[in-house]
């Protein structure tokens, strides 16, 4: 060896040692880091690893079915077929190395063949559109212009094991054909989707409503209940909305292990099966609903043709069993077609509905507030009797008009004001029954607002409000439909608070006949009639007959619910002479209710509705007409609001048989004119149909009871 050894090293000792120290330091540092990750923070990372491999899969449940009272299906679920491609199951590599620009040329020939065959069957082009950030962001399956290749590219880059919809809602025959040819179409599948279907469509859409996607604001609420936003739908209107919790059911759940591509490997826990929603049997009789719709639309069209102009474009009919509160028919005109919302809510149709001045999506039967007009004379009439303002026999004179002196403000000069009867020459001397039967306005001015020359003190606004409320006015009925309005029963406090004006005697005059500030929904008008028809018992109006589970067992049977009985429950608050509450309450005396029924019977036999019912096979009905003057923005635009000759809504409520009622019907026609000539025939038609159907159901041929 020619080299000279220094020490036992060929290097300077410290230089090698320093490298060794570096090795030990770095190894030590890594062991420290490892300890930190694995032992100190191990649990956190383990949790992340668990999160990676586990996925909760929600198994969709079936929404409950809605029937009418005769088990006729009003809402059901039908199968809809979608063509899907699972990219991972296509032969070869569909993404061609992940370069979208190469899709056309670099694709596997086998995949191309599958695309071509499928394209020939379903008509979606093999390649259309371009893949870029914009199109990928806006991509939405079922509603895309992209070709098969582009859709698969998007699917493949997101979740290659998840089926992607290529075309939605194909014909069942085509679905069968694609299934039969599955050996030629590897990776292509048929997905069966449950879609809501409404066999009766627009006839019952007001009642049934429709479904829509879970709204963003309610996402947390529905997610807690196990719903999947974006997939599951919830009720947006009608029974679908109010009975959401009963119809919705509960989704099943599976906790599965997935690999990085999203492929399911196994269940980690025992799967929870979905619980189907409960079925609902409504109180509606679809046949009567149909008859009511035809009666309403037919009558409106008849008068529009008669006048050669579109007088009226809006009306409501509601039929109910007054003894149980079951709603047998509820018709709005105009309405909408809920089947068009089954798959998704189409923007153009929705906008068309929203922009329609007659608001087809608005539930006029329960949400529209109109002056009720003379149908509101019933609360005035029973109030005046019950409070002893008049006796039934006492006659008051109707000269055609009366003049009272009044002033708006204390420092204003007094002015004479004239109030007219609908019959300009007047009805002459009238007792209570005649006043009701002829709907004599002056009679009601006098008993409502008082008339000193005759020695009548009048019911006054406070007590009138009590009797109106007892008959269901001024509050929601609580029917199972969304958006119910409460109407308006004013009193002097209300006027001072909201309009800043004092209550005038004239206000009481017109309130006594359902005009002025008074507003009511058609359902409230029906309820007020039904309470009287049912001897003072206010039955909760309902659309739900019973609730059944998915196997058809009754879960919640029908029980008529009594809200109150005006002859037994003390619902009338007693005021003293200074219009202050005394704290006492009282009932309506039964003979007053009986007399009210007689009065309504007299309307049909002798009074304002005599002509309508003369030739009807139903000769045992009772009712009340209403011709309500109104001046709203629509009328103002058309310059119809001329003093003394305002346009009028047409009202009528009726029930039959008068002594033992089983059907009560209200009809309302917007700008319909006289109650007796427009609304009354509609009610007659519905009541006749009811008895015809009843006879048919019991096997009789003739419809007259």
């Amino acid at each position, binding site marked *: 060896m020619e080299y000279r050894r220094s020490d036992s090293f060929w290097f300077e000792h410290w230089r090698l040692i320093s*490298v*060794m120290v570096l090795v030990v330091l770095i190894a030590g540092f890594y062991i420290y880091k490892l300890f930190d990750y*694995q032992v100190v923070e191990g649990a956190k990372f383990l949790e992340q690893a668990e999160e990676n491999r586990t996925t909760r899969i929600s198994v969709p449940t079936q929404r409950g079915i809605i029937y009418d009272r005769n088990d006729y299906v009003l809402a059901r679920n039908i199968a809809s077929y979608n063509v899907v491609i699972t990219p991972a199951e296509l032969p070869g590599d569909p993404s061609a190395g992940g370069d979208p620009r190469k899709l056309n040329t670099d694709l596997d020939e086998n995949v191309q063949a599958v695309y071509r065959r499928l394209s020939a069957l379903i008509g979606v082009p093999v390649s259309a559109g371009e893949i870029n950030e914009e199109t990928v962001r806006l991509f939405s399956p079922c509603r895309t212009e992209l070709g098969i290749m582009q859709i698969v590219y998007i699917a493949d880059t997101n979740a290659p094991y998840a089926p992607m919809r290529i075309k939605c809602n194909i014909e069942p025959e085509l679905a069968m054909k694609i299934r039969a040819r599955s050996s030629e179409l590897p990776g292509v599948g048929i997905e069966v989707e449950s879609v809501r279907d409404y066999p009766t469509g627009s006839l019952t859409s007001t009642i049934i409503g429709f479904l829509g996607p879970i709204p963003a604001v309610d996402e947390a609420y529905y997610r807690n209940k196990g719903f999947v936003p974006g997939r599951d739908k919830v009720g947006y209107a009608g029974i679908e909305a109010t009975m959401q919790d009963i119809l919705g059911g509960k989704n099943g759940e599976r906790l599965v292990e997935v690999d990085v591509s999203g492929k399911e490997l196994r269940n980690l826990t025992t799967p929870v099966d979905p619980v189907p929603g409960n079925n609902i049997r409504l109180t509606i009789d679809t046949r009567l609903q149909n008859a009511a719709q035809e009666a309403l639309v037919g009558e409106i069209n008849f008068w529009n043709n008669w006048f050669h102009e579109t007088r009226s474009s809006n009306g409501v009919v509601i039929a109910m069993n007054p003894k149980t509160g079951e709603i047998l028919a509820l018709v709005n005109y105009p309405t909408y077609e809920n089947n068009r919302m089954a798959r998704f809510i189409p923007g153009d149709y929705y906008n068309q509905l929203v922009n329609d001045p007659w608001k087809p999506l608005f539930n006029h039967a329960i949400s529209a507030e109109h002056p009720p007009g003379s149908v509101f004379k019933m609360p005035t009439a029973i109030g005046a009797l019950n409070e002893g303002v008049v006796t039934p026999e006492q006659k008051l004179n109707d000269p055609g008009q009366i003049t009272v002196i009044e002033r708006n403000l204390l420092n204003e000069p007094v002015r004479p004001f004239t109030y007219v009867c609908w019959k300009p020459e007047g009805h002459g001397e009238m007792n209570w029954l005649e006043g009701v039967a002829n709907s004599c306005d002056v009679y009601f001015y006098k008993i409502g607002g008082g008339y000193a020359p005759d020695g009548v003190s009048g019911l006054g606004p406070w007590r009138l409000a009590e009797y109106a409320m007892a008959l269901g006015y001024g509050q929601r009925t609580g029917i199972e439909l969304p958006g119910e309005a409460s109407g308006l029963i004013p009193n002097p406090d209300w006027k001072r608070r909201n309009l800043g004006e004092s209550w005038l005697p004239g206000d009481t005059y017109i309130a006594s006949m359902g005009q002025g500030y008074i507003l009511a929904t058609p359902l409230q008008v029906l309820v007020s009639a039904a309470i009287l028809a049912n001897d003072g018992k206010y039955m909760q109006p309902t659309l739900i007959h019973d609730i059944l589970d998915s196997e058809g067992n009754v879960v919640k049977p029908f029980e008529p619910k009594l809200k109150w009985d005006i002859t037994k429950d003390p619902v009338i608050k007693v005021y003293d002479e200074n219009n202050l509450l005394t704290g006492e309450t009282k009932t309506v005396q039964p003979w007053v209710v009986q007399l009210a029924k007689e009065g309504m019977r007299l309307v049909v036999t002798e009074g304002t509705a005599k002509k309508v019912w003369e030739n009807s096979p139903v000769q045992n009905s009772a009712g009340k007409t209403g011709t309500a003057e109104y001046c709203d923005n629509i009328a103002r635009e058309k310059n119809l609001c001329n003093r003394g000759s305002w346009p009028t809504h047409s009202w009528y409520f009726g029930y039959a048989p008068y002594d033992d009622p089983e059907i009560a019907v209200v009809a309302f026609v917007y700008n319909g004119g006289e109650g007796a000539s427009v609304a009354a025939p509609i009610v007659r038609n519905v009541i006749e149909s009811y008895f015809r159907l009843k006879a048919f159901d019991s096997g009789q041929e003739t419809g007259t009871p």
Partner: protein
Amino acid sequence: MLRRETWKQFDFLLFGAVIILSIFGVAMIRSAIAGNEVLAELVTRQVIYVFISFGLIIVLSLIDYRYWSSLARLLYGVAIFSLLMIYIFGTALFGSARWLDTGLILIQPSELAKIIMIIVLANFFAQTRERPRNFRWVISSFLLTFGVVLWILLQPNLSTSIVIIVIWLSMLWVSGLPVKYLWILAGVGTVFVILLLALLFSGAKIPFIQPYQLERIATFLFPDPNARHGNTYNVEQALVSIGSGGLFGQGYGNSTQVQLRFLKVRHTDFIFSAMASEFGFVGTVIVILLLVFVILRCFRAAALAADPFGALLAYGFGVLLFFQMAVNIGVNLNVIPVTGLTLPFISYGGSSMVSLAIGIGLVESVILRRKSFE
């Protein structure tokens, strides 16, 4: 041939540690392929490479390492020639041409170049031992190194280039580089890095550096928390894999991160994470300690070597092992940007395994022929 008693000098502990690490590597690769049928044959291949490697270690330890000293010029030529061959017959994989298809197997000449450069540089520094440690000495060793590194850079293969540069630096250091030069080198290096970062943000095209390499640095410095793929995702999943291992690991073949393939490049770059996930802190520390043991055993050979060439050879190889290990584990632990360096003896790779075996063979040859203590 060696005399019988010379085998007593053979470093059985080093050889044993290498055998344990290699076999453990095969087992780990088998777990890491996670049922992927395409990758399944890698296990068989690695087994073959491991056996070839054991053979190579024995054969090379029998050959006197001083023999390679005389072949240094020839080997240098072979390294450059094989690297140049890539440009003519090279096979591109994953974006850069690094492979030479010999018809039988794919060879990665840059892997062999590492070993050849250890021999060449060890030879250079042994021969220039008596020369003054001046600027000329540094530059001439640099030019010698750069003669090979240039072609590797052009492939492009930045990580292997850095490995060779590091070997050169470490040999300069141990051969007595004056400390003031070290400061100059550190200064030059800092300026270089600053320039690189400046260029990185200017977006200009830099020779020898691929866009993906800049991206890696960028994602290391400023990770995108929402990335579902690419380097950020890979590193993130590596950390989750490591952390989920806990103290004793999820068990061989049981790590969900590995078996359900959330962890990417599991059998090469991120095999450390796979191992940490399945064997936990205890198992991983044992492997790190074994690797450190192998490195220190190489340095021991360097200390005991009979001549400077042997000492530099063993030392250089020890540095190579150390640097690869440090970078690979550093990437796995997210302390270094992603590079393509494998974990010695454990990651999958034929050329890498074979060149590591050659290195161990050389170290054993040095230790067999060490100076005897009287």
